């Protein structure tokens, strides 16, 4: 039986037990004085039986399906020719067998492969029948047991709800597992990196200049892995972006929530949100070919040397991109400031702007900080604009007219470009990622503290 069909059958069995149990409880209840005499509503008994039938069987199905192939592969090894040539490759042989099973015959196929494939097909049939039998049997049996257990005193609702709660809790673990997964997928490489480059040099070094270190080029250039210029560049570009996005976004939010008519607001807000959805390649071209030359020419006209790749161009365009993060989220937060604070300010004779500046904004600060943080995250994570408009040169500078680069764009460039998995250069991407995550973690904990502190203050 194909697995799709099996799953449908499984659902069918669940549905059957649902209806059976529901019916059973209704008729049992009848003799006891109606639904009122039962602990739970009939459909909870139904759901209980369905859960009992479907969930364990489904888990079994998943585990079996995951394990099946490796079992077959080990079984298939018995078909390998006894007199194996030196270049006999078990994995390729298995692939070949599986190809034949899938109906792909490439070139001439040795007889034993055909035999193995035939066996494989047999096992497959056997296994899928066995699986079907077990899954259906399990579902039927457990469903039956649940069905039998049904009686008006059975706390079906509590059990169903407990299952739901467990499922919900399981979902909240996904976020945890994601983090664990991320840490695990960068930690080993990072450790290897720190085995080659001392963490001190990495964290406090002032020069970032990794050279290709493999193949012909091994040991040729002197690589520097000082991450400070990257973090400084990230900071510089983010600050420029925030200088564009925060005032524009915040003032837009203020105007929309405090002054604009609801209609204007309902039109302008989604319009501004489009800015966040424009692909970053577009922003990249815009930054590199429109904004950067503009700054350069403008700079020249007033006697400044502005390089074509400048933090300024990248930062400004990135700022445009993240305006909606600040405007939309701040707008929500400003709206949520209790009316009582506005009343208090107006009652004392504040003008609107005074009450906004001195009361509403301070009160909304935690939320605004949150929205800015989200905007910063987006800015820090952005690569395309940086690579296209700010270049990749890791200059340690505070001059926005210079070319700089950011952590994320280095990570992406390293991982996308020519690489060798054991070179310090490639590994440095993982170390950068790990460091960045640690830094954002600290930032987030800090932000949480700010939010906590201010949250105590109003309301």
């Amino acid at each position: 039986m194909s697995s799709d069909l099996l799953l449908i059958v499984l659902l069918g069995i669940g549905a059957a037990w649902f209806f059976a149990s529901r019916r059973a409880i209704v008729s049992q209840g009848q003799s006891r004085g109606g639904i009122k005499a039962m602990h739970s509503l009939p459909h909870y008994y139904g759901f209980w039986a369905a859960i009992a039938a479907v969930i364990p069987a489904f888990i079994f199905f998943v585990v079996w399906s995951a394990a099946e192939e490796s079992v077959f592969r080990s079984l298939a090894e018995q078909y390998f020719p006894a007199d194996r040539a030196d270049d006999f490759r078990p994995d390729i042989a298995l692939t070949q067998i599986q190809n034949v099973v899938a109906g792909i015959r490439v070139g001439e196929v040795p007889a034993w492969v055909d035999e193995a494939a035939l066996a494989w097909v047999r096992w497959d049939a056997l296994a899928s029948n066995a699986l079907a039998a077990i899954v259906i049997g399990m579902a039927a049996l457990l469903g039956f047991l649940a069905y039998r257990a049904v009686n008006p005193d059975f706390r079906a609702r509590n059990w169903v709800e407990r299952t739901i709660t467990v499922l919900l809790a399981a979902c909240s673990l996904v976020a945890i597992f994601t983090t664990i997964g991320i840490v695990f997928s960068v930690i080993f490489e990072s450790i290897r990196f720190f085995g080659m480059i001392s963490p001190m040099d990495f964290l406090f070094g002032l020069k970032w200049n990794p050279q290709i270190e493999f193949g012909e080029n091994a040991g040729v250039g002197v690589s520097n892995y000082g991450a400070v210029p990257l973090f400084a560049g990230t900071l510089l570009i983010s600050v420029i972006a925030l200088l564009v996005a925060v005032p524009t976004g915040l003032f837009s939010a203020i105007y929309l929530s405090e002054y604009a008519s609801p209609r204007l607001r309902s039109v302008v807000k989604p319009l501004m949100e489009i800015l966040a959805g424009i692909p970053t390649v577009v922003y990249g071209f815009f930054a590199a070919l429109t904004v950067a030359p503009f700054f350069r020419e403008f700079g020249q006209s007033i006697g400044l040397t502005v390089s074509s790749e400048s933090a300024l161009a990248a930062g400004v365009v990135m700022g445009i991109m993240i305006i909606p993060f600040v405007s939309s989220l701040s707008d929500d937060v400003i709206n949520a400031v209790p009316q009582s604070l506005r009343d208090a300010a107006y009652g004392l004779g504040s003008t609107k702007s005074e009450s906004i500046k001195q009361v509403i904004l301070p009160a909304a600060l935690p939320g605004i900080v949150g929205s800015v943080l989200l905007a910063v995250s987006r800015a820090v994570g952005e690569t395309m604009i940086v690579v296209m408009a700010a270049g990749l040169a890791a200059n340690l500078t505070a001059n926005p007219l210079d070319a700089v680069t950011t952590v994320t764009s280095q990570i992406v460039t390293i991982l996308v470009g020519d690489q060798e998995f054991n070179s310090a250069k490639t590994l440095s991407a993982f170390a950068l990622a790990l460091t960045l995550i640690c830094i954002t973690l600290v930032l987030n904990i800090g932000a949480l503290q700010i939010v906590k502190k201010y949250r105590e203050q109003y309301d």
Partner: protein
Amino acid sequence: RDYVSIAGSSTVLPFSTIVAEAAGKRPGVKTPVVESGGSSVGKKGACTGIGTENIDIGNASSRMKVSELDVCAENNVEVTEIKVGYDGIVLASDRSGPELDVTREQLWLALAANVPNAEGTAFVPNFYTTWNEIDASLPNIAIRVLGPPTTSGTRASWEEMVNEKGGCKQNAAAKAILKAEGKSAKTCRPLRTDGGYVEAGEQDNLIVQKLQEDNSSFGVFGFSYLDQNSDVLQAAKVGGVAPTFEDIAAGDYPVSRSLFFYIKKAHVGVVPGIQEYAREWTKHWGEDGILAESGMIPMGEDERAVYADAIENLPTLTADMLD
């Protein structure tokens, strides 16, 4: 897996995809999937692991080194090397800008991280800021060359062919210093990071566009981008030779390299379509083929015959073939 999986050099990618697309037109053949990643990913991918979770063919814009072949040996993987053509690395600028006719040695002086000092006694950080400081015949404009980042094979080739072979090994002062310090010429390779050479990402189109914004800048990229944009770009002559189709093919243009792909032999006969894909190359790699049309410089007849033969017989690449 019922399709061919290819990865590697971003230089070979455009040509590889053209062939893949053509190969996929046959009924019942799935078009191969071509990923980028760089030459070393291609070479390493070809050499690591057998089994359908690994790639079948690796593209590379530089030939496998013995050390790289060792990886294959370690993994018990045999590969076949197929050369498909050449690519020239050009230095180009906007047509409205000054023309440039330089030698590789001058380019080295303009772009290397370290150059011999005026007395020729030691390497010092590159101090040239304008072209005419290197040689009076060159224009009096600031040195500003946009090119690929350190993660690029194109850049590595440039460093090898210009800085090492065309620069340090030709320059008397440099040779003397190297000898005195007991260093190999390889140490001449790194490019300057003080702004004379600008890492502009691996987006060659962007470099082309930036050159049009600023006509005193030069850009380093593959021949095909020059070919497509010949109406707006002019190429610098290197060693007196302009990067034309004919001169690169003839080997006269000094900054050019060969393009390869490596077939994981064990997958032939397992994953369908590998050899068919390789054969497809032979249909297009001639002077009139669509690959030439897209800017790949074809090999000569004889070489084509050799590699067409290799595609049929799949000889295993061995270390002595590489020397």
